[in-house]
């Protein structure tokens, strides 16, 4: 065997198994999902494999009446818009909370930095379901927050904190906040603090320094953080399921529902494909614009 042949064989044997696993059990299923989204719906819960149909996509916007005419239906659009809106709110709140924390972390000495990064990272590795469940305990009518406010006499009856968009936004922020802090921190950490001092020497105010010096330097991290919060929030399943209480659905729940109660696979597949395209589209836009940042992390 030639040397080049050996190298190729070696490569295939090492990379092959992992590549095959992801291809066979993720990429092929995703392809199948795209295919199913263009098939007819079998009302017993399956797919009419030999029938091409765009019914699943029509269903996104219209409702088919009994006499087979189409009527506009905003229910699904509303869920999609709500998902985008809640993810956007989550992203903005995370940015407002995360930026000062990242600034604080980046200006500590080495030992403290390590401790703080550890503390920010730690909750990410704990069970997402459990962390969202903890918020049920806090937000319930007789939960910690309402009990505390009642005891303090601030309110006379419990505030409706759970099972609404507020609860979902809080849960999403809680779930994905570390993804905002860490990238901002890592871009701020590289800033030469003398630039900030120079800005003050040139009579800039604190606000001007933030706007003209710190934010531009932190910008790549801010964009990365926004993407890393927005994308998983958009596809969230557990948070709206637990904290939204069945009324505040997001795309993820709508997809899941098509494989449970609704038994409409083509529609579920179409929604899944829609979410996939949305996510991969925004990621590739980001990657094209900030390629250097992605590769630079090595």
């Amino acid at each position, binding site marked *: 065997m030639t040397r080049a042949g050996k190298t190729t064989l070696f490569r295939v044997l090492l990379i092959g198994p992992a590549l095959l696993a992801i291809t066979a059990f993720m990429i092929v299923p995703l392809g199948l999902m795209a295919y199913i989204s263009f098939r007819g719906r079998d009302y017993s819960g399956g797919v009419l494999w030999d029938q091409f149909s765009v019914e699943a996509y029509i269903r996104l916007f219209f409702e088919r009446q009994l006499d087979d005419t189409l009527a506009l239906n905003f229910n699904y659009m509303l869920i999609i818009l709500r998902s985008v809106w809640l993810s956007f709110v989550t992203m903005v709140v995370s940015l407002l909370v995360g930026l000062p924390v990242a600034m604080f972390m980046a200006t500590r000495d080495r030992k403290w930095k390590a401790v703080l990064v550890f503390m920010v990272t730690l909750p990410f590795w*704990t069970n997402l379901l459990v962390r969202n469940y*903890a918020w*049920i305990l806090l937000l319930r009518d007789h939960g910690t927050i309402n009990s505390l406010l009642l005891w303090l006499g601030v309110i006379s009856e419990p505030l409706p904190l759970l099972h609404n968009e507020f609860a979902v936004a809080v849960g999403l922020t809680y779930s994905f906040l570390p993804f905002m802090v860490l990238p901002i921190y890592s871009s701020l950490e590289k800033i030469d603090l003398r630039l900030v001092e120079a800005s003050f020497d040139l009579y800039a105010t604190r606000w001007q320094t933030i706007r003209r010096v710190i934010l531009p330097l932190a910008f790549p991290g801010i964009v990365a953080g926004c993407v890393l919060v927005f994308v998983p929030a958009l596809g969230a399943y557990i948070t709206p399921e637990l904290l939204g209480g069945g009324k505040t659905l997001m795309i993820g729940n709508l997809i899941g529902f098509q494989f449970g109660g609704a038994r409409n696979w083509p529609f579920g597949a179409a929604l899944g494909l829609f979410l996939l395209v949305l996510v991969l589209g925004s990621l590739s836009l980001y990657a094209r614009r900030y390629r250097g940042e992605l590769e630079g992390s090595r």
Partner: protein
Amino acid sequence: MRLNPFRRRRFPGDVTHWPGLFTATIAFFAFVYLPILILIALSFNENRTVTVWTGFSLDWYRVAFANRDIVGAATNSLIIASVASVSATTLATLAALRMASKDRFMGKGAINAVFALPITVPEIVPAVATLMFFASLGFTLGLGTVIIGHIVFCIPFAYLPIRARLEGMDPKIGEAAADLYANPVRAFWRVTLPQLIPGILSGLVLAFIISLDDFVTTFFLGGAGSTTLPIYIFGLVRVGVTPEVNAISSLMLLLSLSLVSLSLFLGRDQNRNTGPG
């Protein structure tokens, strides 16, 4: 001492002492950790109403451990996480060994993108796609299908730290082994692998935690007999808040926290070895 907020403010250019940053950070950590701590505290509450504290008790842990369903779910969780993390780490290590080398070959970037795919797309999408895939092939959903699903999304969690570890290795050590007449196989077993072990273990523990904590993939790919702890907890939470849930949830939190500390500890060792200078 540097954290002391009451220290006299110095000139405004000293960004380390800007007002508000310290307060914001304290508020942030309170927001992040208080819900977890409240959950753990309430799991020791003797009262059944769950949110009002009346006294310390270990009853709910006793109730949880005596519950056969919970023990069964915990066993399933451990089986799935062990098989999935070991398989994924094996696949990831093999791939990382080749992918970490500096040479370029066709499709290298694309392969890296494929390895990152499971953590790039929202979990619900591959979960339902794989559900349709298995159902179309006539597979019965259960432990087997859940394990396959877990192996796939565990690969990146093992692959990324192992590849990083390999890329951080000093190539001179390998060259030195060759200079000392070690053949490539011997150099791998005696030089590369021992250095790589902490990276592999760190990746293994991360994959284990991720598998143990998973809900969405298990929920859609599971069937009768593959109920894991998160699935069980979810079922209870939907019905209502009970103190047993607090107890199992706290145990899961503590397990993840100790495992991740272990993994980060292993990872810390890496940095010390490979840090510049």
